[in-house]
């Protein structure tokens, strides 16, 4: 058995609000994520999903417990992580290629021919090969989010953190992007933590689903998704898919006491 890539050890996060009140965002969160596993974190708004992501990324320090990557507690941002946010947040003063190579320019101060070639490869991977020198505002929302995914992959991270990456997209684009992501993930296997509000999205994408409780955010349930890979449109009509989605819907909307 391989050691986990990411493990949460009784992780707790308390924020002090501007009014001086303490808000417990996360409480006693413990679970592991294995190598090249695709884990979805599902939970209502404000249950601490983004906080969880910031903790793995080393952007904030936990109040209690720890996050470990390869068995080492996270104390600062690390190289093996790529992040995709809800909004693409591309830089309008660069073209598409400039945006994909931006992490290199930003981290090391220069972009070489090798990185540009790599960026072109990644653009081909996200199906935007012909858009390298387009301006950002010439792209649709879905295309912009693909550029953001390519940007996150530039430095070849082992871990990909995605915070509701498709929630700003329309329903059709969203489904299309889910399958795109699965294809990208099968071509470039990564350990993925995928945060979402959408039950079908979580079931379609993930190997395992972590369901969280609202305030304070705790792990309510961890579910294996026994659907075969590669997943396709047929997966959406699989009875297992619906059974699992219904089950999650049931737990999410039941009172914590009843769960």
């Amino acid at each position, binding site marked *: 058995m391989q050691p986990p890539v990411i493990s949460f050890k009784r992780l707790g996060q308390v924020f002090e609000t501007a009014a001086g009140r303490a808000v417990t965002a996360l409480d006693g969160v413990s679970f592991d994520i294995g190598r090249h596993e695709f884990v979805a974190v599902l939970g209502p708004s404000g249950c601490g999903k983004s906080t969880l992501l910031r903790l793995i990324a080393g952007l904030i320090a936990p109040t209690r417990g720890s996050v470990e990557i390869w068995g080492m507690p996270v104390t600062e*941002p690390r190289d093996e992580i790529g992040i995709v946010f*809800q*909004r693409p947040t591309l830089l309008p003063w660069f073209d598409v290629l400039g945006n994909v190579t931006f*992490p290199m320019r*930003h981290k090391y101060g220069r972009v070489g021919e090798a990185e540009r070639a790599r960026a072109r490869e990644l653009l081909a991977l996200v199906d935007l090969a012909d858009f390298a020198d387009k301006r950002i505002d010439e792209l649709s929302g879905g295309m912009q989010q693909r550029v953001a995914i390519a940007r996150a992959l530039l430095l070849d991270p082992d871990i990909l953190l995605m915070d509701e990456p498709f929630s700003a997209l329309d329903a059709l684009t969203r489904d299309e992007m889910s399958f795109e992501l699965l294809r990208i993930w099968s071509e470039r296997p990564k350990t993925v933590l995928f945060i979402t509000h959408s039950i079908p999205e979580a079931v379609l994408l993930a190997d395992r689903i972590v369901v969280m409780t609202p305030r304070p955010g705790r792990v309510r349930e961890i579910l294996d998704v026994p659907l075969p890979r590669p997943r396709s449109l047929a997966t959406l009509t699989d009875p297992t898919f619906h059974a699992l989605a219904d089950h999650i819907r049931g737990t999410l909307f039941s009172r914590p006491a009843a769960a």
Partner: protein
Amino acid sequence: MSDTTAAAPETTLPETDAAPTAPAAGVGTTLLAWLDRFAPALAFAAALAVWEAATWVFAIPSFLLPAPSAIVAAGLATPAEVWLGHIWATLRVALMGYLLAIAVSVPLAVALASSRLLSRTLYPMLVVVQSTPIVAVAPIIVVTLGASDLPRVVITFLITFFPIVVSTVTGLLSTPEELIELSRSLRAGRSREILHIRLPYAVPHLVSALKISTTLAVIGAVVAEFVAAERGLGFFILFSTSFFKIPAAFAGLVVLVAISLALFRLVGLAQKMLVPWSLPKSER
């Protein structure tokens, strides 16, 4: 029955009307397009004509309100090299004050946006400086700094720099939180965060402030010349009025407006050439 009789003329009315209005509508739209293009110039010309006519009809003396023709005549009566001397004197002070304001404001804005302590210490001071009527302080500055370009540049600087600082700080702080987190996750460092992300994000704000400040810079230079100068358009206007040469003073005013407009346009052009991405798509 009454329904059908009432309906009958209604259905025929548009038909009879349509024949004559169709070509008229064509003329109407071309007229509209023409108006759309020339309306500003026409309105301007009309205003000048009304002004000219009013001065004749009401026999307004030229020391109260000179006619446009009198202003033009006065402008032409002053030799070109005299104009150029005054223009250069004012423009030099305005530009030096403006450039000094940019050179001070942008780093100051970066400092204010980077440190809460600095912004809490310096901001109140800046607001006090900004709230001081510069026109009232100008004579003091001139006495303190002596008779040279220096006090004039300082006065121009004081009028110009505040909007640039405030807009740049706003721009620096308007950067999306995600990009700052991206920067921190790459451990790129504070200076790269400011240089690669925050400053470019501040550019649209900075450019609007730079546009506003062109006018302020000209105002600053003129105010300084009102206090103490022997050259410049402000001096020329003051000098002309003191000899009741009101048309000449108005001519000086026209030149000042022209300079302000030219500088404003220049900043717009620079934006189009240097940072076209900061313009809305329609204006690129």
